[in-house]
């Protein structure tokens, strides 16, 4: 089992090396075999390891493998060691399995792209880095994976690098997440300085011993780690990069910017939950940020024209739900929503990508329409994904995961009616913007017509994800319905159970409320975007809609607050003495070059003259010696 566990992250890395070293000289047939194949074997190994893990839970709820000593100096030891517990198991399952499906989809989606092997090389590197991130046994190795996924995100957003806008989006994503990463590495320094180790288990054991409840170093460490999580997971105030990250190919959006990388922040907080438990004020901040983000992104999603941008804002909003769950101490509910979200959001991106592909890169949902009959499979899978996102009651997985979060937002010890209200409002927005998409793209008047049907390689992953978007909900049912707790039962070995204190109102009431809200939202979307489009248009014309469309003006605000002053400073500082000195050196060198180049005039007799004079010089010197 230990060898298999080691192979899971190493195989995609091997795939990356095989694909990248020959520099794209491999035959396409082989690329399509190696890229998805390596991730496929990883997924298979994950299945085997997972079954072994569930059949015979190891001692202490975790399996550890130490490969080699990476850093060992001055008291700092950071081995390359993997540790698999229930939390990591859920993550590696989603990463390899959803990753494999998306790789399969890409075989056809990217078929005509000239950067075929580059694409799969980056994707494999991403999967490998993400697996290292979630399997890492110490925070330094986790940070390595963390930066690795950030790099791949950058490379893949700017994959079509010939368009400067894509390069800009890639740099924006990289720089904004960098702000969070800097906070995180400072957090790592702080932890090491105080606790003298970076091993996660040691840290979690030492932190409560060394730091009391509510102590300030614990709060600082939690805040700094939270900073990293906010950047990576595109939460308020660092959320502005994700909508622009849609410049990458659709499979990239599905894998990196929906299913896996953006939830790394959720993983980090869940992994270091002890620190957050020590600092209740920071944990409350997590919940508040989650609640604010899910509302803010929900409103923005309501006004976007670009199919992928709607989904991007929806991703920000759904990760807001996960943060809300983590903030109220409902760890396993947050992770459950992560898993379900990975399924349905990957599905939505794949189906949306298929629509965009067959419509010849048409992104505007107002130019689409009536695709229901023309792309039946895409329609049904997209509908299932949307239903799950909108939390359509009883049948979809999204309903069960979101309902759990809403219930704990009220009932847990850290819960609050305001958090619940934000969650419910967010759910309402979610079902409106989701079905706005469905009605505009697949119903109504016929828009741009598709050039061809998506092939089998694209359809099959979508169908599998559609089945999971429905079926994954049934492994964790609320007490009021059937009381199945397979998922939280598994996670309880790694994360503390939620502490329910406000349980005086039965959960059924909340479920009914959530169900009514979801269905009402769908009905409103039906009214405003299909039955009476003038209603939707009425809203589109308003200033408020413009404001939401621009993402609440965050881009403009940051531009005015940070970008402009820095550019201005650089502008006025162009001629300070260092610059003057540097340009002087350059000018002087240039002057000498000009002088010397005068002697190279192409006239043979001048050169002979030069040689003769040189010889006379040398002879004179020799004679004087």
């Amino acid at each position, binding site marked *: 089992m230990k060898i298999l566990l080691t192979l899971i992250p190493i195989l995609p890395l091997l795939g990356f090396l095989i694909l990248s070293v020959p520099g794209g000289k491999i035959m396409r047939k082989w690329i399509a075999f190696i890229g998805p194949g390596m991730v496929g074997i990883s997924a298979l190994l994950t299945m085997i390891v997972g079954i072994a893990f569930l059949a015979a839970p190891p001692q202490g709820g975790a399996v550890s493998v130490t490969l080699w000593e990476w850093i060992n100096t001055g008291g700092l030891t950071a081995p390359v060691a993997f540790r698999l517990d229930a939390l990591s198991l859920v993550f590696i399952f989603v990463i390899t399995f959803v990753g494999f499906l998306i790789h399969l989809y890409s075989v056809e989606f990217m078929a005509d792209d000239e950067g075929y092997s580059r694409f799969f090389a980056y994707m494999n590197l991403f999967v490998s880095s993400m697996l290292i991130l979630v399997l890492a046994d110490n925070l330094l190795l986790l940070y390595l994976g963390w930066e690795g996924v950030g790099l791949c995100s950058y490379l893949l957003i700017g994959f079509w690098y010939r368009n400067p806008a894509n390069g800009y989006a890639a740099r924006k994503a990289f720089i904004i997440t960098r702000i969070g990463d800097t906070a995180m590495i400072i957090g790592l320094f702080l932890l090491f300085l105080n606790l003298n180790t970076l091993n996660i288990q040691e840290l979690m054991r030492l932190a409560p011993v060394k730091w009391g409840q509510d102590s300030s170093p614990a709060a600082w460490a939690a805040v700094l780690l939270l900073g990293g999580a906010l950047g990576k997971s595109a939460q308020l105030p660092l959320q502005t990069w994700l909508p622009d990250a849609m410049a990458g190919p659709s499979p990239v959006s599905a894998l990196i910017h929906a299913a896996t990388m953006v939830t790394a922040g959720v993983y980090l907080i869940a992994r270091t939950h002890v620190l957050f438990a020590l600092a209740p004020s920071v944990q409350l901040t997590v919940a508040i940020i989650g609640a604010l983000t899910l509302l803010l992104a929900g409103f923005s999603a309501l006004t976007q024209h670009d199919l992928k941008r709607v989904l991007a804002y929806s991703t920000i909003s759904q990760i807001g739900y996960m943060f809300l769950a983590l903030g109220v101490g409902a760890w396993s509910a947050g992770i459950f929503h992560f898993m379900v979200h990975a399924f349905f959001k990957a599905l939505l991106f794949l189906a949306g990508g298929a629509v965009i592909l067959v419509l010849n890169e048409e992104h505007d949902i107002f130019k689409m329409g009536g695709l229901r009959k023309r792309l039946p499979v895409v329609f049904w899978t997209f509908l299932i994904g949307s239903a799950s996102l909108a939390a359509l009651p009883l049948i979809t997985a999204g309903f069960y995961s979101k309902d759990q979060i809403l219930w704990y937002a009220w009932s847990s010890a850290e819960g609050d009616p305001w958090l619940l209200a934000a969650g419910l409002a967010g759910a309402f927005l979610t079902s409106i913007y989701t079905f706005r998409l469905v009605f505009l793209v697949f119903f109504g008047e016929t828009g741009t017509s598709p050039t061809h049907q998506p092939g089998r390689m694209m359809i099959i992953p979508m169908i599998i994800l559609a089945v999971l978007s429905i079926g994954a909900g049934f492994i964790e049912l609320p007490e009021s319905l059937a009381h199945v707790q397979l998922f939280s039962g598994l996670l309880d070995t790694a994360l503390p159970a939620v502490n329910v204190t406000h349980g005086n109102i039965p959960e059924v009431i909340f479920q009914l409320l959530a169900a009514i809200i979801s269905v009402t939202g769908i009905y409103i979307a039906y009214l405003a975007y299909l039955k009476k489009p003038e209603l939707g248009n009425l809203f589109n014309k308003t200033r408020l809609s413009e404001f939401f469309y621009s993402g609440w003006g965050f881009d403009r605000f940051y531009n005015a607050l940070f970008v402009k002053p820095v550019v201005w400073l650089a502008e006025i500082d162009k001629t300070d003495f260092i610059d003057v000195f540097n340009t002087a050196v350059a000018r002087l060198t240039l002057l000498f070059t000009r002088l010397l*180049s*005068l002697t*190279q*005039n*192409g*006239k*043979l*007799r001048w050169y*002979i*003259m030069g040689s*003769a004079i040189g010889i006379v010089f040398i002879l004179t010197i020799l004679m004087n010696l």
Partner: protein
Amino acid sequence: MITVPVEIQILFAGLLFLMGLIGLLVRRNVIFMLMSIEVMFNSAGMVFVIAGAHWAQAEGQVMFIFMLAVTATEVSVALAIILQMFHHFKTLDVDELNKLKETD
């Protein structure tokens, strides 16, 4: 038999060399430049002969004969180049051939 001092002999060879060099520098016609080079070669050969006579060694004259062979080869190659040059550029003026230079 009057013997000329060796210094005068060397001075004569140097003068010959200088004549060749000046010819090389002032002439623009390649054929004359080639002839000037021949003059310089011969002045060098003369130094060999003078040195051989001065120390009564045969090597000086051997070297001169060897040098004759070398210059013969050199002249044949150089003449071929000059023929090609005239063929391509329709001129024998070296100053016309100044394309190989730094251009601003």
